């Protein structure tokens, strides 16, 4: 029984690790989509962040330098996205796609030219990675039944970005629903004309939303290359940006449900990794590909209104033209 309990804890533990980049990216998507900018560029911004983090951390030997480089590069990409889709009123999806493709090529190209390791950047420098933190008294109370292992195995022993991601959720919820910025942000995604009439710049609101999204995707990228893993690899986001987008839609563009969707998708991923080649009673072996496809299928079903209904912010996808 005790063994089973530990198994469950370990599963929850890896769920938490896998969910971290999804949570950060989903929150990033939340900001930009709630302001009316479709963000399919989460994937590219995250990948750009991962690249910048690995390169900077490896060169400076500081994980925080990597983190800031990631944030800087992701914000730069966000500004390009904003310049195209807000200032020039270009198509938000097209500009997002352009960024995704450009970054997918840029990372390996620069990595190859600068580090000469076939498109990857190994992060081996001393202090270049975010190490797991042991929470206070983790070892002391490990022996306490139930609470001890939960605290020591599940809650303790993650790197700082995992805790940051978890703290970001209530913070984002507070900003979105309780602050003036959040009120205006939601308004600009639903009815930009009203916001404009109130004398608030629609463009500046949307730029700010994209910048916040850039910061969050940058952190997510840094998590991938200098915290969870120890290198930048070609296409290392592997669809996580799109998965975060799916989680955001699944969470109906709200922070807490989006968090739950991220945890659900990450749990599916964690289970999938454990089920490889394992015989499940009654079912036999479940193909891992089937489990991998579940989040995407769920999102399609949700969008089709077969499981609940997801209603997007009203002004999403439309460039705002003053005085039409």
């Amino acid at each position, binding site marked *: 029984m005790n063994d089973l309990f530990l198994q469950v804890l370990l599963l929850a533990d890896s769920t938490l690790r896998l969910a971290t980049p999804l949570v950060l990216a989903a929150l990033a998507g939340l900001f930009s989509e709630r302001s009316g900018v479709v963000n399919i560029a989460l994937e590219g911004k995250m990948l750009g962040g991962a690249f910048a983090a690995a390169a900077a951390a490896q060169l400076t030997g500081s994980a925080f330098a990597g983190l800031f480089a990631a944030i800087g590069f992701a914000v730069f990409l966000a500004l390009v996205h904003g310049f195209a889709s807000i200032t020039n009123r270009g198509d938000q999806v097209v500009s997002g796609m352009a960024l995704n493709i450009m*970054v997918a*090529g840029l990372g390996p190209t620069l990595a190859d030219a600068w580090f000469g390791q076939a498109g990857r950047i190994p992060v081996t420098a001393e202090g270049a990675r975010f190490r797991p933190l042991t929470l206070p008294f983790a070892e002391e109370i490990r022996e306490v039944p139930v609470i001890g292992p939960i605290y020591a195995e599940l809650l303790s022993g993650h790197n700082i970005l995992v805790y940051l991601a978890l703290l970001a959720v209530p913070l984002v919820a507070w900003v979105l629903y309780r602050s003036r910025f959040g009120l205006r942000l939601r308004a600009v995604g639903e009815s930009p004309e009203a916001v404009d009439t109130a004398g608030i710049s629609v463009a500046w609101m949307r730029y700010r939303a994209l910048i916040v999204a850039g910061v969050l995707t940058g952190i997510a990228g840094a998590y991938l290359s200098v915290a969870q893993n120890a290198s930048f690899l070609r296409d290392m986001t592997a669809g996580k940006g799109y998965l975060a987008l799916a989680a955001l839609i699944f969470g109906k563009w709200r922070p807490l449900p989006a968090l739950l969707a991220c945890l659900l998708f990450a749990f599916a991923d964690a289970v999938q990794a454990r089920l490889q080649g394992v015989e499940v009673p009654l079912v036999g072996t479940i193909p891992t*590909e089937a489990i991998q496809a579940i989040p995407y299928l769920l999102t399609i079903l949700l969008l*089709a209104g*077969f499981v609940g209904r997801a209603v*997007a912010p009203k002004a999403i996808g439309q460039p705002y033209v003053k005085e039409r």
Partner: protein
Amino acid sequence: MAARRRLPFWADYLLLPFLNLSLAFLVSGLVVLLLGENPIAAVKLLLYGAFGFGEAVGYTLFYATNFIFTGLAVALAFHAGLFNIGGEGQAALGGLGVALAALWFGHLHPLLAIPLAVVGAALLGGIWGFIPGWLQARRGSHTVITTIMLNFVAASIMTYLLVNVIIKPGQSAPETVTFAENVWLPQLHGLLQPLGIAIGRSPLNLAFPIALLCALLVWIYVWKLRLGYELRVVGRSEPAALYAGISPATHIVLVMTIAGALAGMMALNEVLGAQHRLVLGFTGGYGFVGIAVALMGRNHPLGVVLAALLFGALYQGGAELAFDMPRINRDMIVVIQGLVILFAGALEHMFRPTLEALFVRTRPVPV
């Protein structure tokens, strides 16, 4: 909108894309500088690699064939106001259709086996386009999201099948057995040799003329048929279409199915024309590049063909470039593609106000 000044046709369709493209290449040149290579020398190598000798031209046209199919898949859907990002998944499923047809009917006479494989590609790709089309038309789910999600579902299906079911027995690489020669698409170098055109050993095959034929058919569909007229009405304004007694739902489902079939037929070129077996990941991002091709080509079949040639040249020239310049690798082409989408697609209106102002100033005063 009455005050809106329109640019002359040539400025809209030639000058503007040219300016955007130039900017994309300029930024690409900066990236090459960043890599520590000479951009001018790189351009020379790229052009020579794409057009310098017969085999290079053959390869350029071979890659262009992929881009014509996936570009048409995006362009066609666009006329109904839909954004089809699902080319990658549709092409993958098309590959599955080709492979199943080739494995089942490969022993038949080529005149029977090849058309069956073409049908296989169009059928499975079409199904993968029908699903988001139906979801959009009947359930209101946005095609941008559903096609992205279906790309991943397609990837899962392909991985499962190629690893567990249709893999060549006794090996670990996820690919099928080589198809029977009956079903291979004839390569063009043999046909062109007597005409005095040498394209070396390039894999240019019958899929290229098929792609051109598809472009022609798309042009007829969109601009010459009543069906296409109705389609464009739906794309412009669904309420107007409804008012005119046109059913948007029917057209959305139809156009997405055809778009899926077009993307699926990309597999003819790669799978049936060149590799002669189904390899996991043969789509290699061509589906996404189709977006760039459609944008560059202004969603017109002729434009798509020209843009596909441009991207084919980039692909082939880029491969040669990566071979000759040690600091540049093949991913550089992907960067250029991204920049082209950014400048020719998302930022297409950047120069428009300036150009319009220029034309107004230089235009003679109308009497």
